């Protein structure tokens, strides 16, 4: 059975919630093991194009693990094993013909802690386009850098200090720099692993606004511990619990009318 047909034979869940929007990524029965320990127990999720999917759940429930499966970042962890199917535009990303490096250029990632490279602001943004040969000349590269910084809402703050080290920015600016860096390679999907957990409320508000704007051009998956944040930025929400995905639905639906008892318990703050 080919990957294409496999996806199309199971369209029920997606069809029920949002028939019009195509699925950018699909996960089917994804299981992840770290050595003998099973971290994910068969996850099924559809990630719709140009929408924000929030992954919520208590610590250690497997949200980050699942996120890292989506661009094969788990490959860099030793004795981590992934089973099941994850498809990007209908193509199995763990398939034989797929190079993890090329995949990550299409599915970018922003991390929990801002991790700018020990380079100038300019070189931080230009890093991706340079290694992928996306800009041929100096001017083209300048343009990519400016555009990325503008889209990340950072251009006005740093345009006069592009040559200064990226590590000299404030925490919130660093995180927007990392988002700009991810945008610069024009990915199709951006994964964000608790992007605001190390930031103050003002910087967080900036990033949330930014996420909402980015939705126009990118598909976004965000892991967050902050349920207000999930409610604010996402259209879809998936609730994870102990390695299972309990439910995945429209954000409004999850927060106002959760079907599962555990979801209700978590969002009302009874545990987790």
């Amino acid at each position, binding site marked *: 059975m080919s990957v294409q047909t496999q996806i199309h034979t199971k369209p029920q869940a997606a069809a029920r919630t949002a028939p019009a929007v195509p699925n950018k990524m699909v996960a089917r029965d994804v299981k992840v093991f770290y050595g003998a320990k099973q971290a994910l127990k068969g996850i099924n999720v559809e990630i719709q194009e140009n929408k924000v999917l929030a992954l919520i759940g208590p610590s250690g429930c497997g949200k980050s693990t699942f996120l890292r499966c989506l661009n094969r970042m788990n490959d860099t962890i030793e004795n981590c094993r992934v089973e099941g199917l994850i498809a990007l535009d209908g193509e199995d990303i763990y398939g034989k013909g797929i190079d993890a*490096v090329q995949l990550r250029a299409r599915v970018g990632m922003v991390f929990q802690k801002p*991790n700018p*490279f020990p380079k100038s602001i300019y070189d931080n943004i230009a890093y991706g386009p340079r*290694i992928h040969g996306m800009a041929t000349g100096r001017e083209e590269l300048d343009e990519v850098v400016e555009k990325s910084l503008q889209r990340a809402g950072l251009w006005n703050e740093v345009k006069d200090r592009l040559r200064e080290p990226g590590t000299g920015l404030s925490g919130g600016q660093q995180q927007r720099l990392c988002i700009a*860096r991810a945008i610069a390679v024009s990915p199709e999907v951006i994964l964000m692993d608790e992007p605001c957990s190390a930031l103050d409320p003002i910087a967080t508000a900036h990033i949330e606004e930014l996420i909402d704007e980015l939705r126009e051009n990118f598909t976004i998956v965000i892991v967050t511990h902050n349920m207000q944040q999930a409610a604010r930025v996402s259209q879809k929400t998936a609730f994870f619990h102990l390695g299972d995905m309990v439910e995945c639905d429209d954000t409004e639906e999850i927060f106002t009318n959760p079907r599962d008892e555990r979801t209700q318990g978590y969002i009302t703050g009874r545990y987790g």
Partner: protein
Amino acid sequence: MQITVLVLILALLTVSGFQMGRSRAVASVGGRLVELHSVPSYHGFYVALWAGLPALFLFALWTASEGWLIMRMVMSALPDRLVAGDPQTLNLLKADILNIAHGISTGRDVDPAVTAAAAHYNSLRAISDWSLLAIGASLAVAGLAYGRQCISPDLRARNRVERVVNIGLVICSMVAILTTIGIVLSLLFEALRFFSVVSPIDFLLGTHWSPQMAMRADQVGSSGSFGVIPLFTGTLLITAIAMIVAVPVGLMSAIYMSEYANPNVRTWLKPILEILAGIPTVVYGFFAALTMAPFVRSIGHSIGLDVSSESALSAGIVMGVMIIPFVSSLSDDVINAVPQALRDGSYGLGATKSETIRQVVIPAALPGIVAAIMLAVSRAIGETMIVTMASGLTANLTANPLDAVTTVTTQIATLLVGDQEFDSPKTLSAFGLGLVLFVVTLSLNMVALRVVQKYREKYD
């Protein structure tokens, strides 16, 4: 004998002082330890310090001044005809008295006054030793009694003991600093003596090194020229060759160990590499002289080059192998210390492993790598044995790695080997070389530190 007894008494008193202080502290609050300001053992240490420290201080002062004082008393008791003389004969006289006092025969006929002085010296010594024992022991007992007297629940024993420990730590760190200052000063004074004979300009800018001084006016082949430039070019040449070998190999093996090798390989590879650092340099010297030099020469001959049997190249290559572990082991540590978040960030943008290493990991680890390389350079400049054995003693001014050259350290070693007169420029030139070498390595280290600091500000 008396000193041994004193040490034993002191040991006994400090140990019992500790016990006494502790039990007295416990007794002073009737066993309710919470009422004590400090834990009982601090009271114990407090009394022990009072018992031991003043006596030890006296002991140190006494032994430092004793010899000088006794000798002064002996000399002043000598008849005038012996004391009247220039300082050198006086020194000789003092040495004679000491030798006779210690029962060593001088091998000459000795003035009866000198023999009497030696007996006088011995008796004074005995008095001094006994009085040291008596005063030291009573001081220890008095200290013990005073310390014990001070014990009360409110005594801030911990703070006081810790202050003493603090002073002890400062003294320990001063030892290294004072030793360095002492070395520099001794180097400096001997070097100044040398520079009073040979002008510093001739020394620093001369291009001919031949430190043989003529003993007679008509002696042939003893020009006595002291130009250090050939020595420094030789040092630089060999160091450069060593670094050309060590830096790429060391850095690449560090990258392999930290980024590519799986942990199992790494656990046995790294210790093996570090064994290289444990091989004595003399053994490297054998290898360079007996294996590497003939090998380099035969290769050179087979491609039609004229290679001397002692070449800078063979010494430099072996020296490079010797310092590989410095570069690789230290670089491996700094590369490992680069946060995983940076690597993840790079992988997350679709960078390959090699792109990540070249453009993110290495730049982030650069300060540490520079420090490792600088350490290796100082090691290479200071290395003596390999060059002595494999590259010879000929001070050629050349940039050709196939020629024999010599280095500063090798020359220092040869200048000071064997019986030397310590007033000839030949011997003193070793101190001049040492001083210049010291200045060079010091400035190198300072430059390295500045480089490291500059990058650290930028990258952390």
